[in-house]
Structures are given as structure tokens and as C-alpha cells.
């Protein structure tokens, strides 16, 4: 899968790459309630997205401590802003560790963080563009179902389907 296909449709973007995501995300979505805002990111050569309202910011990933007995997908524990964060890696294929430098903090009691190789930015989607994932219909979802694939919907960016992470499912992993 070539990288160039993976760029989300730039015309619908609210944010741009390199936007200081640590702050002001609420401001970004304020007053644009018609649109669903998602943060899109790349990990392990795949694009994903997560609802902006489900995130608490993006930080540089601190040192990871291994967690014995952790479920598949959990790669360790990191201390972020005084809170212990359970770090998950959605990437199926191994990418060089050096790439996985950013950590998306997920809002909620699970104290989760998602590793990212690259943060693209915030995308504003019209609600009708958010489509449900038909389980088992395509290769991708079949593959992911093996470890409790945490997405129930996706949106299309060009020819590419970008899954929208379901935060509640992440917590069930």
C-alpha cells in the first residue's frame, strides 16, 4: 500500500500537520458541531483516526516499562503528566522503534495511550461520511478481529478506508 494514497482529503481538514495538539482541541471543534472531528494518525504503515473528543492531547512518548501479563497490543506503561498510562500499539507490522515517538492520550478511566509514528491532524467529517464497519467483509477487519478490533466505523479518504477507533472497545482489550 503506497504512502501517497494514505493522505486524508485535505479539503476537509480543520487542522494541519504539526498543530500543537496538546492544547486547544476543544476550541477547534467548538461551533463546528455539524462536523465530526477526528484526529488521524499513522502507525505501522496504516492510517487510523480517533474522535477528538476522546483524546486528551498528544505528547512525545516517554520511556516504556514492560507490563507482565498484558493483553496483545499493550506494549508497556508510561508515566505521563503524573498519570500512569497504558500504552497500546495498533500497528500490526513491526516498525522501527525510532518511528513510534508520539503518544495520543485517550480520555477515560482506562488511562490509555496510542502509539503513533506520525500525527496528521484533525479532520472534520460530515456525519454521513462516517460509515459502519461490516464485520468480516474485508481482509482488514477479518485480520483485526483476531485481537478484538477496536473500530466500528470508518471514513474514506481518497480510495483508502481510515478506521475510527472506538474508545470503549479499546478498554475491553
Amino acid at each position, binding site marked *: 500500500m503506497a504512502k501517497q494514497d494514505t493522505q486524508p482529503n485535505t479539503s476537509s481538514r480543520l487542522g494541519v500537520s504539526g498543530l500543537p495538539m496538546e*492544547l486547544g482541541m476543544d476550541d477547534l471543534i467548538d461551533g463546528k458541531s455539524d462536523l465530526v472531528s477526528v484526529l488521524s494518525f499513522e502507525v505501522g504503515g496504516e492510517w487510523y483516526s480517533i474522535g477528538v473528543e476522546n483524546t486528551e492531547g498528544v505528547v512525545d512518548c516517554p520511556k516504556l516499562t*514492560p*507490563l*507482565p501479563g498484558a493483553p496483545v497490543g499493550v506494549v508497556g506503561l508510561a*508515566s505521563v503528566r503524573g*498519570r*500512569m498510562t*497504558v500504552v497500546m500499539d495498533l500497528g500490526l507490522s513491526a516498525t522501527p522503534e525510532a518511528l513510534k515517538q508520539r503518544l495520543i492520550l485517550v480520555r477515560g*478511566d482506562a488511562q490509555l495511550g496510542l502509539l503513533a509514528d506520525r500525527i496528521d491532524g484533525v479532520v472534520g467529517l460530515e456525519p454521513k461520511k462516517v460509515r459502519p464497519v461490516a464485520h468480516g467483509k474485508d481482509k482488514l477487519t477479518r485480520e483485526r478481529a483476531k485481537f478484538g478490533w477496536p473500530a466500528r466505523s470508518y471514513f474514506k479518504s481518497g480510495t483508502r478506508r481510515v478506521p475510527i477507533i472506538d474508545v470503549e472497545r479499546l478498554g475491553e482489550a
Partner: protein
Amino acid sequence: MIEDNTLLSEYLSESEELLDALLADLDSLAAGHGETPDTNLINRAFRSVHSLKGLSGMMGLAEVQSLAHDFEDILDDLRLGQLSLGEHTNALLQEAGAGLAALVGGAARGTAADEDFDRLRQLLAAIALKSRERVKKDESGPGSLNLSDRERALLTEYEEHRINENARAGRSFYSIATAFDIDKLDTGYRALSARLEEAGELITTLPDKTADASMAAFKFVFAAALKEADVKRIAQPFGGRVSKLERSTWRKAGAALRAAGRRVPGLAPPKAATEDLPAVLPPSFAREALQPLSPSVRVEMSQIDVLSGLAHELSIEMEQMSSLAEKFLDASNLGAAERSDLRFSARRMKREFIELEERLVELRMIALAQTFTRAARLAGRLARELGKSVSVEVSGRDTQLDKMIVDRVADSIYHILRNAVDHGLEPAEERKLAGKPARGKIKIEARLEGTRAVIAIADDGRGLDHAELRRQAIEAGLIAADETLTEEETFRLILRPGFSTADQVSAVSGRGVGLDAVERAVYELGGEVRISSEPGKWTRFELAVPTTLVLISAFIVRVSNWRYAINVAQIIELIFVSPAEILGPDGRRSIEWRGNKLPLVELKYVLGLGGARPLHQAIAGQNGDGHPASIKIPVLITSAADKHVAVAVEQFEEQREIVVKSLGSLGRKLKGVVGAVDLEGGDVALVLDIPSLLVLRSIRL
């Protein structure tokens, strides 16, 4: 009288505890009979009365406050030796104590009569009268010690009195000069003080000079019936330089005193005043004092911790039992109904254990009501001192937090409030010019946010000025002149050490403690400080802290370059084992310990970090030491399911108090890991529950 029922019951239970302690100490004093009363007892009684005074003052019970103040004066005279403690005085003190105890409940409920207060006041005045016959002070006392004038000036009246007393008892005086590393100041200071208190009397600690900024130097003034060599032996482990604080003339005077059997003119204690004082309290006082003030029972936090620990162990045992039961079920020929009964009751037990553990956590929780009420009162008082007018709005008083967290966060709340009143709110004229009402507004709120509580303190004052913050940060060298900062980053500058936005340090806020202390305190609890503001309009500080917290004493070990914390309550002994002492083949190793054969497992294997390599090879490789005979493997003895197990690690580090941070709802599902702790250098150590881990990994026991 206290209107608020929550406050009333808290006041009653707190004051009851203080009064009980006071009465017990007065009883012990009376039982002592001695001419020289036990100073520790008097000091403790003084502290109880002093706390009661403070507590009552805070609740607006002026009558109790003033009576406690009179009482305090008497105890002060007593400890300064200005009042002698005869049998009669003792009886009067006990009566006064009982009178105070009898009055407190009535005063708090608003049912006490004015005459009752007056009677107690008369009694206290009568006792105080006796202290008019003061003991003439021994002028030669501290003056003859070879301390510098500056140091002598630092001595309190009480310390001078103790020097006199010790001199009279013929003890020697020593000065012990020592310096502690600032990081270790607490422990070092406490350890040396404790050693000195055991061996004699630590009169005072005076600050000393040192050239090294990372050290804090002290001079301990110490009195004991010890030889200089003995004192040196005590002080030596702390690097203390001992010198004797005595002149020959002093020694002569002391000897003369002893020879004269204390009957030296001017030094004799006053004759016990035995004039009869009327027993001014009616007998009904004693009866009322028998009524408990509060229906609640006070329990030490540590007791709850013990219960939690027991409940946890029970639940592990229970898990083991139920898995054993499953095995028996498979092998048995029980009917379907019995099988389902057994499973049902195992499930119910599990649920009930979880509930038990949750209830125990709840026991540690208290509402923020009292802290908020104090905070609101404090804000009002500060505003008055500064000539400002403020209205304080409080919400979320019912928010429940672990008592330890409330205690630790209280200082931070007060600190931010002080800042808000002092620097945040503008003077009335300035507010009028800005089109605001003259009266400032402060909001104190609490709300729950998942597993955290957010305590917010907001003021409608002048707000934070970005440009000014930036200018000052550049001036203070905290940021480079061309550094770009986001709005939040700019606000957060005020949390940096050495940053002060106040051009003038006022008496209220300028105590040399910056907001960095607030951030540190909150961070150590596993929380964060958030700041938002609109220049000219408002500032809001939020402290997000966990609602529950566990502080444990843990031992840190190292395995495969990672550090782990283990509750010391789970460790029976730390030993070193040489490879020759290990019995059995790899995978079924054991050692002899106190005459028993214990299975030996590697923590590394238990954690799934590596296979069962021969232990001594792993260690030898690390040390670069090829001589197996000299190798010592660190092993901790623990117990799981009532059996002892030896667990090998790679390195012992140290024991310390740690705040266990939660791993969140997902992390809670991990068996054998109860949380994590921040260590220096950005490291994180998992807090292991060794018995659960062993059970989880089906380690043969």
C-alpha cells in the same frame, strides 16, 4: 455554637480526642508526685490544649478558645518551672481539665450557660495566682555555656529553663555540629535527634553555617550524664563534631549545687502553696463529662491498611480454593445441582471479597467539606488583612477523597487561595475602573472526573498577563528570548521554581514558597495542575488528583534492568545465597532456609522476562566475575498460600515510602501488578503483588 451538623460532629470527635489525651496526661502528672514533673507530659498536655484552642477558635467558639488560652498559660508556667506542682495544684488542674471537657459539648451545641464558663475561668485564675510566686531564675545558666551571643539569643525561655534544670541535675552539656545533605535532611535529622533523645535531653537545635549549598548545617545542644567519648560515639555515624559546652566555673557551680542539696538561696523551689482554694466546680460537671461527645469511633489509618491487607490475602486464598474446588469437581461424581451450588457459592464469595475491599477503601475517604469551609474562612480573613472585600462561593463539598490526599492537597489549596486573594484580586478602586463590582469573587469547587477529583479555585481578578509572564521568565533566565510558547505553556511558567509575579512581596503570600511547591505536591500524588485565565477577567487553577491513594513502604529490586517495588509487608527476609547453596536441577531449585527446604524461583521468570538460565551464570556475567564461590545471589523470602518461597532477583536497591499510582481500569485487570510508582530519572517501577504473581504463574509451592 456550631450550626453545621457535619462540622459539629467533626469538632466534637476531634476535641474529644484532645480532651481525652489532656485528662490522661493530667492524671499521669498527678500520679507522678515528683517535685520535678515530667516535662514530656507537660509538653504534651500543652499541645492538646493548644490544638483545642486553635480548633475552637476556627469554629468561632470564643469562650472555649479563651478558656483554653488561660489553661495554656498555666501549663506554660508549669513547664517553665514558674509554677510548682504540688498535690493541691494537681487536683485543681485535674478539676479544670474535667471542667473544660464538660463544657466543650455544651459550647458547641450552644447549650452551655454563661455561669459555667465563669466558674471555670475563676478556677483557672486561682491556679494562675499561684504562679505569681515565681522561681527566681538561675542567672548563671545559659550565659555560662560557651555559645556565641547570636546563638544564645536564639534560645527560648523554655530552653534556658531546661539548661538550668539539667545543670542542677549535674549533667554535662555538649554541642554537636553536623551537616546533612539537603535531600536526606529529614531522615538524617530525625535519626540523630532520636538517638540523642534516647541518651539524654536534646535542648535545642541551632542553625549553623556551611559553605556547601547542598548541605544544611546544625548545632545540636545536648545535655546528658555521659562522657565526651560516649557522646562522640553517638554522633560519629552522623559525622557530628562534638565539643563540650562547659566551663570550669560552671562545673564548680554545679558541684556546689549538688553539695547543697539544692538548698541554694534563690534556687529553691517555692514552698508548695497549700492555701485552700474552694472547689469551685459543682459535682454536675463530672457527670456531664462522662457522656461521650460523639457517637463515632476514631480509627488509625494504619489499622485500615492492616484490614485491607488481610482482606487481600484472604481473597487470594479464596481464588486458590475455588480453583482447587474446580479440580475436585472434575474428579468427583457429584450431581449437577451440587456442582452448580459450589460454583455459585464460589462466585458469590468472590463478589463479596471485592465488595469488602471496596468498603475498606471507602473507610479512608472523607468529604472535602471541612477543608473547603476552612479555605473559605481563610480567604475571607486574608482579604480583610489586605483591606479587600471578597465573597467566596463553595461547591462540591460532598466530594469524597482519601483522607491522605485531602491532607496533602490542603496546603496547595490554601497556597493558591492566598495567591488569588493577594495577587489575583485587584484593590477596590482598580476593580471599579475596570467596571467590576468592588467586591471580588472567589469560587472553590470540586467535581469528579473519572477516577480523579478536580479541585478548582477561580477568582474574577486581573488574570494572568501573557506578555508580563514572558518578560519575567526571560528576565529570570527560564526561557530564551526567542522561545515560542503556547498559551498554556506561558501560564505554566508561574509553576517554575524561582518565578514570582508579584513585584512586591506581601506579608500574606511572600513566604518564599512558590507555586512550584504546589505542582510538586500534586504531581507526587499522581495528579496535575491546570491553569487557565483571561487577562483582566479571571484566573482558574485546577488540581486534578486521584480520589484514592495507597502509600506503602516498599523495597525496590532490579531485574533485567527494570526496577520493581514490592510491599515490605510481603517480604519476610532478605538474604544472599551462594550458588553452592542451591539444591536441585534448574526448574526445580530449592534452598535451605531456617531448617526448611524452600522452592527457589527467579523473579525474571515469574515476570515472563526470560527463561530459567542457571542463576549463578546470569549473575556472574553481570559482575564480570568468574568465580562462582564469591557470587552472592540476592533472594527475598516471601510467602504465598501460607507457604514460604524464595524469590531470586538480580539486585537489591533500597526500602522507601512510595505512592502507588493506579494503572486505570484496564491496568486493574492485570493480575500481580497493583500499580506503579514514579522513580527518579523518569523511570517507572511496577508495584508487584508477589503472592498473586506466583499463584498466577502456577509456581509450585
